[in-house]
Every structure is written in structure tokens, then in C-alpha cells.
């Protein structure tokens, strides 16, 4: 690209200024949304997104520091909004909200908020923000309707509706939201945070338009998309052309233990583009694990991005290089009114399937299966009758990677690769809870030449009566290893009752009653291993034993490494005998 003679340095500089200003605007909005949000869920985990879109619903810029799982949703819901309220019926200061999973949304609790941005009295852009709000009705608190069988039981469905009209709140709408929530104050706080976020973007983009002119901004936005597209194509050309397949089987929908669900992906790489076809994926579930189209598209794009240059900016240019087919009536494109709240199970299965497919194209980038987020909601009422709701989550181990161990307790894949630990002092100050432990589980990472990441155990004693709802997966079938690696250790949920009895919970159990003194325990699974464990460097096994990641027993029986009881040295000859024994055993 040496033909830049038509460019002047003013162009170069202005482009950088506009690009950086757009990025700063969405980043600032995400900071505002996260900081002023009410739900602890958002504050601690940044389950949020902010974006700028153009009037044709193309993604111009997206916040960088927030969760990736919402990339496609703000983009996918905008056409519906424009269909219901045409652009010429919108006014400066209007704000709209929607959450309909069948029109680009995700599930009831993920609210998508938009504000049109005007240039010479025409809608030129939209500011968009999205967060998971604490509770918006439905059959169970916090939208954790793990056993829901339709969208209606998951919460209030909102088609695109006007929330603010010319800067003034549409009070009946706010009242409607509040009236449909178990925690009305919190939801209104979250909604105000979302609105504050779109206001920041609208202000910043407005300033840019004023300074540089609408035409110039449009030109630079188009250039940025083209630039991302060119770089995506270049990057995709580095993957050998061909058709690759991957699949992932999820634990189930919680309604029936017998029925298995598969997510299959065929990925075709050709001419600098990727075609991802989910044909062969199981039919939609009567339960809640279905993924709306925008969610699976976010996942698809994310998975492909993991095999391209990570520095390419995320905007519409990315979407142009990835075509996807989601069969109608399947787990990844259900027909209404199927429930979608538990979609993380299926979306991450889709991500795993694509990662597996592309791992076969690029074995040097291979990754074993990972654990999945485990969520719990504890709720009850205070002495004065006011409701409380503690929605929290934990991550399991990431799969082992070709060349490195899987990270412990990390939000796998597009949950952002983040680590969390409960804010125990803050939670105990707000809720009738007493944490007993929050720890990593030894031997939980799938053994392998490269070990899977460890899962976690969190034990919470209740100080008052409460209701418990959980959601987990990859327990019945823990994350598998690849190329001879072993699976990670299964997680689980249980209650230790005051009488000493242990009561195991179903991974999608809802509304369990707990009393003061009962202890709720949640374990996340370990990630799968990669390569045979007996090929792991004995020194790495020794380091794992010393740090408590692997027990002495497992070192001996699984990794075939003999380590002395003081954990200081490897018995070289004994180790050799163990490992040779395996080899000779094989020969027979």
C-alpha cells in the first residue's frame, strides 16, 4: 500500500485524531456505565458494552475494556429499532431500549439502550450501551430461570420502546420497568447508568462532528472499517485454506438428563474469508440453553478473531470477512418463544467447536476444552422486608494450550479471559453471608503434557433464610483433553445442611431453600490437558507439586514422576522406571 500520494499529512493526523476520539468516546461511556451501574454483577465483572454505530447499523467502534460477548448484539438489534421507529421520527435527546432475543437481543436481563446522534438534522449515528441488569421479572430472581421453557418466564420482553423523549424521561416506561422487577431501585439505577453512557457518546461524537464536519467523520469511519477488513483478510490468508470441523457436546438443558445436545461447526477458510456453518447442531431445546442469533454471532466472530491478528480494531470490517449460517430451529437459532437465558452454555460450545476446527488448521495454536462460568443467585428479605439479591459467579480452568498450561480460574474465551475473586468484605457487609473459603482445587486441572487450568471452590454459610438458584455446565462431561491429555476435574454444586447432610444440586437447579447455618458450596471444573501427562517435563511436575497445584499422589500415578515426600527432588531412576514401564506395557 505505497500509493498514498493522494494523502496529505493533515489527512493522516486527522484520521488518527478521529479514530482515537471515537475509541475514547466508547471507552468513556463504558467507564460511566460500569461505575454508575447498580448491580454488583456489573461493578465487579464489567458485563457491559458500549458502541458507536452508523445509521446503517454498521459497527463503527466498540469499547475495549468490557466483555466481548456483546459485540454483535448492539449491532444486531439496531435494524429492529429503525424498523419500528424510522429515523425521521427520532428526535435529539431520544433514548430507546430493547431486549428482545428474537430481534437482536440476548435475554431479558441484557438491556440494549440507544440514542440517535444527529448531523445537520439527520440521524447519522447511534450511541449504544448494554449491561446485564439485576432483575427484570420472570419466574426466578436475577433472570436465572435455568429451567424456563419460554421467553415469557425469563422476564419482561421489551420490543424497541422509547425511554426518553427529547431528553425527558418517559415516566410510564420507567414505571413499567420498575413494576416488573424484584429490585426496582436497582434496575432504575442500571437504566440511568445506561442512559448516562449513551449521553456521553452522543456528546463526544457531536463535538467531533462540529469540529471536523459530518462528511469528514463519515469518510474516516468508512476508512476505519475498510482498514479492519483488509487486515482481517490478510490475517485469514495465513490460515491454510480448507474445510475444518469441530463439535462440542453440552451437559444438557436441565430438563432432561437423557437428551444430549451437540454444537457442530464447519469452518471453511478461502480467499481471506471464513464461512462458519452450524449445520448438524442439535435442534433447539425446550429449556433455556438456546442462543439467540446475535449471541452466537458474537461467539463466532470472537472464535475466528482468536486465530487472526489480535491488534485488528473491532468494527464492521470484521463482520464483512466472516459469513455464518445458523440453521433455523436449532440450538443456535431457535424459533420463538424458546427461552434463551442459559445461552452461555451453547454459545461457548460454539466457540469451542470453532476453536477445535481451527486448531486442526493451526495445531501450533491448539487449545483443549475449558470450563464454563458458574453463576449463583442468593436472595431473601431483610428484617424490614426489603429484598436482597446477591448475584455472583466464578470461573473454572482454561484448557491447556499448545506450549503452555491453561490459566487457573479464568473466564474462558469471550468472557474476556478475566479472573475474579469474590469481594468478601464488601459482600459480607451487604448480605447475610459468611464466606468459609474461596480457593483453587489441587489436581483439578486436566493432566497432560500441558496441564489444564484449575477450578475453584467457594463455600458460603448463610446467616439467614435464602433462596438459591444456580447455573453451571461441563460437570457431567468435564472439559476434555486433546492429543492424549486428560479431562479436567468436574465441578458441582451442593449444600451442607446444619444436620451434617450433604445435598447435591442439579447444575441448573432453581429456588432451593436454605436456612441459617446451611453452607452452599460451588465448584468450577478444571480445564482439559493437552498431550499425554507422562510426557510432561518432570521439573514442571515438581514445580506443580511444590506449589500445591498437583498432589504427590497424582504426580506418581498420573504423571509417572516420583517425588520425595519433602517435595524437594525428583527420584530420577524411579521416574524413569515408571515411565519406561508404561512404554513397555504398551509394547505388549
Amino acid at each position: 500500500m505505497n500509493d498514498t500520494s493522494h494523502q496529505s499529512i493533515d489527512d493522516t493526523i486527522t484520521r488518527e485524531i478521529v479514530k482515537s476520539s471515537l475509541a475514547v468516546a466508547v471507552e468513556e461511556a463504558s467507564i460511566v456505565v460500569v461505575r454508575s451501574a447498580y448491580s454488583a454483577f456489573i461493578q465487579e465483572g464489567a458485563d457491559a458494552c458500549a458502541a458507536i454505530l452508523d445509521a446503517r447499523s454498521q459497527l463503527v467502534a466498540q469499547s475495549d475494556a468490557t466483555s466481548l460477548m456483546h459485540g454483535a448484539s448492539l449491532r444486531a438489534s439496531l435494524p429492529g429499532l429503525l424498523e419500528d421507529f424510522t429515523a425521521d421520527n427520532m428526535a435529539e435527546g431520544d433514548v430507546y431500549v430493547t431486549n428482545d432475543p428474537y430481534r437482536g437481543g440476548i435475554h431479558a436481563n441484557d438491556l440494549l439502550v440507544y440514542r440517535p446522534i444527529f448531523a445537520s438534522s439527520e440521524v447519522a449515528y447511534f450511541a449504544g450501551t448494554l449491561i446485564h441488569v439485576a432483575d427484570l421479572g420472570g419466574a426466578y430472581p436475577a433472570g436465572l430461570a435455568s429451567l424456563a421453557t419460554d421467553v415469557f418466564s425469563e422476564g419482561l420482553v421489551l420490543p424497541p420502546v422509547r425511554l426518553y423523549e427529547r431528553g425527558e424521561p418517559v415516566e410510564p416506561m420507567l414505571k413499567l420497568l420498575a413494576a416488573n422487577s424484584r429490585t426496582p431501585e436497582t434496575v432504575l439505577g442500571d437504566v440511568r447508568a445506561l442512559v448516562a453512557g449513551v449521553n456521553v457518546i452522543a456528546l463526544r461524537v457531536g463535538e467531533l462532528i462540529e469540529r471536523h464536519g459530518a462528511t469528514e467523520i463519515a469518510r474516516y469511519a468508512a476508512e476505519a472499517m475498510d482498514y479492519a477488513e483488509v487486515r482481517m483478510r490478510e490475517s485469514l490468508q495465513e490460515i491454510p485454506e480448507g474445510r475444518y470441523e469441530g463439535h462440542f457436546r453440552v451437559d444438557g438443558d436441565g430438563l432432561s438428563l437423557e437428551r444430549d445436545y451437540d454444537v457442530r461447526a464447519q469452518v471453511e477458510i478461502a480467499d481471506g474469508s471464513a464461512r462458519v456453518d452450524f449445520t448438524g447442531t442439535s435442534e433447539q431445546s425446550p429449556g433455556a440453553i438456546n442462543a439467540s442469533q446475535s449471541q452466537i454471532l458474537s461467539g463466532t466472530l470472537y472464535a475466528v478473531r482468536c486465530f487472526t491478528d489480535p491488534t485488528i480494531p473491532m468494527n464492521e470490517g470484521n463482520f464483512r470477512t466472516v459469513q455464518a449460517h445458523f440453521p433455523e430451529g436449532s440450538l443456535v437459532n431457535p424459533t420463538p418463544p424458546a427461552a434463551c437465558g442459559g445461552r452461555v452454555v451453547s454459545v461457548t460450545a460454539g466457540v469451542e467447536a470453532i476453536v477445535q476446527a481451527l486448531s486442526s488448521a493451526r495445531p501450533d495454536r491448539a487449545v483443549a476444552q475449558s470450563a464454563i462460568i458458574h453463576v449463583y443467585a442468593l436472595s431473601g428479605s431483610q428484617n424490614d422486608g426489603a429484598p436482597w439479591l446477591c448475584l455472583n459467579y466464578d470461573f473454572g480452568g482454561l484448557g491447556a494450550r499448545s506450549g503452555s498450561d491453561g490459566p487457573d480460574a479464568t473466564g474462558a474465551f469471550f468472557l474476556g479471559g478475566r479472573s475474579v475473586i469474590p469481594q468478601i468484605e464488601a459482600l459480607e457487609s451487604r448480605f447475610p453471608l459468611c464466606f468459609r473459603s474461596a480457593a483453587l482445587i489441587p489436581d483439578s486441572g486436566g493432566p497432560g503434557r500441558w496441564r489444564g487450568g484449575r477450578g475453584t471452590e467457594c463455600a458460603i454459610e448463610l446467616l439467614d433464610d435464602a433462596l438459591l438458584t444456580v447455573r453451571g455446565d461441563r460437570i457431567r462431561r468435564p472439559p476434555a483433553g486433546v492429543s492424549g491429555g486428560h479431562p479436567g476435574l468436574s465441578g458441582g454444586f451442593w449444600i451442607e445442611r446444619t444436620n451434617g447432610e450433604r445435598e447435591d444440586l442439579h447444575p441448573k437447579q432453581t429456588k432451593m431453600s436454605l436456612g441459617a447455618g446451611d453452607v452452599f458450596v460451588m465448584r468450577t471444573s478444571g480445564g482439559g490437558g493437552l498431550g499425554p501427562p507422562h510426557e510432561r517435563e518432570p521439573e514442571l511436575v515438581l514445580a506443580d507439586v511444590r506449589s500445591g497445584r498437583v498432589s504427590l499422589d497424582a504426580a506418581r500415578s498420573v504423571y509417572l514422576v516420583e517425588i520425595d515426600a519433602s517435595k524437594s527432588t525428583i527420584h530420577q531412576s524411579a521416574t524413569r522406571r515408571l515411565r519406561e514401564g508404561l512404554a513397555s506395557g504398551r509394547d505388549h
Partner: protein
Amino acid sequence: MTAPLETFLGIDVGGTFTDVVLGDDRGNVHVAKLPTTPADPLQAIDGGIRQVLETAKVSAASISRVVHGTTRATNAIVERKVARAAFVATEGFGDMLELGREARVEADRYDLHFAKPRPPIEPELCFEAPERVDAGGQIIQGLSDEQAAEIAGQVAFAAPEAVAICLLHSAANPLHEERLAAACRAALPEAFVVASSEVWPEIREYERALTTVMCAAVGPEMAAYLSGFESLIRGLGIHAPVQIMESSGGVMSAARAARIPIYTVESGGAAGVVAAGFIGQLVGESEVISFDMGGTTAKAGVVRNSRPDVTHTFHVGGVASLSGRKGGEGFPLKIPVVDIAEVGSGGGSIAWVDSGDALRVGPRSAGADPGPACYGRGGREPTVTDANLVLGYLNPARLAGGVELSPGSAHEAILRHVGTKLNLDVAAAARGIHEIANLNMAAAIRVVTIHRGIDPRHFSLIGFGGAGPMHIARLAEAFDIQSARVPAAAGVASALGLLTSNPSVDTVRTLVTDETDANCEEIETIFRKLEQRTAREFDCEPSELQMSRSIDVQYVGQAHSLNVPLESGVFGPEGVRTVARNFRDLYRKSYGIDLDRPTQFVNFRTRTTHPVETLSLRAKAALDPANGSAAAPSGERNAHFSELDGFVATPVYAWTSLEPGHTFSGPGIVEGPDTTLVVPPNWQVSFDGTLNAILQRRPRL
């Protein structure tokens, strides 16, 4: 002239230069600037002190105060050159550090092969104590002296150099931590032992634990360094108290710094913002933005009411990024730190073209060695300094430290690495580098202003550091700021800042209380106790101390609080109402929304200051209006200004030969002993009584 009553010595050790300033209360100032000696920083300090004592003809014994600013603690953390420390947590929570709280950001998020950062302390050195305190401070599970001794024995067996102790709810009840700390000190008499309740007793165990761990990790090294520093000072015959700049902008005794060295984490950076506050006062401005640009980074801070803004969410050791404290990077610290945003954009930052043909500057830096291409010391890549030389802003004949610059090398580097790749001539490429660097640095200013809900247009921008004054006017333009100030001693401003700050101590106590349940007497008692304990840190009568109080307030149910300052006087029912009202105002300003909800008090904070005699700068002469047009350039050279369509003959002034009251309009260049000020065409500059440059933007033509 009357003899000075007080003589002060300020020592600021930066990555590239060690600045030593000798000043007194009569306005005399002497300066020494030496290259930093990284292996043993005391070497350059020793040389610098000897040099100023000689030029000032002052005896070491007459010095009444020594203040030191150091980046040693930060560097140790960033480079992970820290002590082998152990960590003790409540039983069940020993994995806290390994679990961690962090997030991949930016490009890292698409990299499945990312490396999760190592925990600050390896799991082999993490221990658990069988004890538990609840949120209200009640002991649920006791920890006996015997049990504490047993844990201490286990810790001692691992023979760490330092021990950090952080137990759950120790902010509400520190008894168990104190017991364990005593046991560990007994078992490990040589080790640096510190408990979280001694460092910073505030709610949120993870951040408090990391603050404590970082404190322990730098403890042995900082204690040794500070004792070496004090020996050096005494060896030179200086008897004055030795003080260290602390992160929140005051100074503390070297003894306190050695006890809780994490308080020095932004010691060097804080000095710059303090200096901006001082310069602001000199020029009659109480609301200023400080902009400090050195060799490898640029830092921005905000001064309001002549006091630096302070943050309680500082991250140390993170990747230098847009904010410097984006959630998930580095280690969060709970202690108050002057709110500084830092970007990897300094004179030595390298310009390059990425695979998408975009021009980028930094964060890689050529540093002092090999340095920019124009230094002729083997640097081949173009830097911001090379661009400034090509643009005619820098004088090829001289730079601080006496380096002669090679314009030819700068040209060649810029052309090869930027010009040919983008099909630009050398001037256009240099201009691009200069402006992209400005864009990066604007991000730092944006973080401490717009991101905090502060409108920068009402502020004056104060630029210093070796490279800052070349960029200051352009940065002001980017934010629509109409005035900028550059101190006469711009190159050593941070060292001057050290001599203008007062000893101070910050404290905190957490007590989560709903506004409606607030007990004024209890709150007054909390403040009193904090203030009484603090007074013991000072070597003076309590009546000489200035106390200020504040409360962290949040809406019930939210987890992010805002700090609300209190009026002086006893805290009464009116105080509760005022705090709640001021919080609502602050919240609206910060987030643009009003909430009709009850509020909650979380943390009670005090700041105690001992006002002492500090540096004053003497006016060189009374302002003489007749000087108004008398500024005579010492020469001219071609410099590039885009509004004049390229290079124009630009007058060059020598700062040292200017007189108070001198005024001229841009374009112009003012060369000082260790800095260069660029005045673009649409700016006018005048010089005040102490020769500070006052830049004013002229209305657009």
C-alpha cells in the same frame, strides 16, 4: 542582602536525570543536573549535592531540610526486583493472590495463548491463619498467641525476607493481625513484617492485601536504600531532618517511609504535580493541569484549590495504557496517591508505521542509551526528539547535558522509518510524529480531567520536564485551553516541587453506616481518634497541625463511592445533611444523573498537615511596563508551523537574558538552561517577575 534563615535541599531522581536543587526562603535557587546512575543512584546524588553546595557557596551544616523524591519503589515493582516475601491470610483464603482479579484488555483479549501474570507471591509462600472476624468486627473464631506463634514458625521455616499479613475484616478489628505481626517479628527478627491494618485499614480485602504485599515486597530494599541515603547526607555534614516525598503529595520522615515504604510509590510523580500547584500559586492560578514530559513518559495531573487531586484506585505495575489504571492491569493499591495518568510518550519515544500504514509513536523508547537518532550514539530509529529537531524546535548546538545533536541522523531515521513508508517528505513526517505524540499525551490529560468529570477548558495548563514546553501550547489547543504556563526552571520543576510541600499524614477508618443511622458522636469520635493518633507522627505541638476530614459516600446498594470533603469543626447532625447533599451534587457532576435514594458512609478519612517554612522564589525585578516590547531575540532559525504552511524564520530568545515584563508574539522559541519553549504563531508570551512564561492564546485570525 539578609542571610537566609532556612536553606533547603531537594533531590529528584528520575529515569534519565538526577536533579538537585538548593533553595532558601529568600528566593535563591541553585541547580545541578546529572545523569542518573541506575546501579547506585546515591552516586549521582552525591555528585549533585557537592556541586550545588559549591556553586551556592553554602556550608552543608546550614541546610535546614532535605527532601527526596524517588521512583525506586515503583521501579522495583514494575521490574519485579523485590524481596522474597511471605503472605498470611485468613484460613480458606490463602489462594487470594493466585486467584487474583484482572482482565485481559485490548488486543490481549483475542489471544488464547496469553500469559496470566504471575501472582506477586508464589503459593509456596502463602500461609493461612485459623481465625475469623465478621463484617462488624466481632471475633467468630479466635486466634490465640500460641496459634499465632505456630503460624509464625511455619512462615519462619520458609525464611522469607519480608512478611505481609492481611486477614478478613482487619479494618474493623485489627487484633488478630497485630497478634500475628508480633509473632512473626519475634520469629523472624531480621525480616520486614507488615500487617494490612498498619498500612491502610480500609474495607476490600483484595486491594488491601495487595497494598500490604507491595509494601512488604519493597520493604527491605527501600529500608536499605533510605538508610544509605541518610548516611550519605550525614556523611556530607548535613544535620537537617531527611524527608521523603509521599505519593499523596506531602512529605514524611525517612523513618516513616522506611516503615511503610509503599507510601513512596508515586513519590517522583507526585513531586511534579506538587510543583505545578506551587507554580500555579506563583502565577496566581489555583486550578491548573500539570503536564510533565520527560525522556520516556509524559504525566498529567490536576490541581484544584492549589492542591493536587488524589485517587484511591491507583494501579502500580500495569501496562502503560490509555488510563494507566484501566481495570484489570497491574496491582491495585488502596493508599491515597496523587491522581497521575502516565503515557509512554516522551522525547525518546520511537515513531513507527504499523502494518496498516498508520503512524504510531511509542510506547517503545530509545531511552537515554542509545537515545534518539540525533544523539549519534547508535540510535537508528526516529524519536519525538528527532522530529522536534527536524522541525527546528530544538537547537542542534545544545541540549541539556551538553549533547550536540546531529540533524542529519534525525533526517535519515525519519525518512527511512516513516517518510518513505508513508510517501511523505521529512518535514511532513516529522510534523506527523510531533502531532501523534501530542495525541497520545492528550489521552493522559483526558484521563485526569474529562474522565473525572472535570472540564479542562477552565484550567490553565502548566508544562515542564525537559520536553514538555515544546508541546504545551499544542496540547492546550487540543483541549480549547486558552492559557499555559511554563516555569523558568521547567527542567528541574519536580525537584523544586519537593521544596514546596509540607509534612503530612493520611489516615482512614472503614465503618459502613447508612445516612439514616449515622451517629454523629460516633463519627466525631472516629475522626478524633484518627487525628490524635496521627499527631504523634509529627515532631511538633498539635496546635501547629492543620487537619482536614472527608468521608467516602455512596448510594445504598452501589459499590463505588465518591470522596466528600467536610467543613472544619465538630461533626454534627448538620454535617450528615451537608455531606449527603454535597455527595448528590458531586454524583450529578460525575455521572450526569440524580438518584432519589438514601446514601451510605463507607470510609472516614483525615489528612493532617504541618505547615513549615518552604521555598520561596524571589522576583528578579519589579515588573517594568517599559520592558513590554523590549524582548530582543538572540538569533533566529527556521522552524515549522503548519498554520504558516511550513518553515519560517523564527526568532530565538535566550531565557536567561529575558527580563520580567518582556512580551512577544509567536512564532518564537525560548531556550532555557535545560528546556526549550515553543510559542506557535497564534500565541503570545510574556514573562513574570520570576521569569515564568505566561502563554496566552490569541483569537484566531
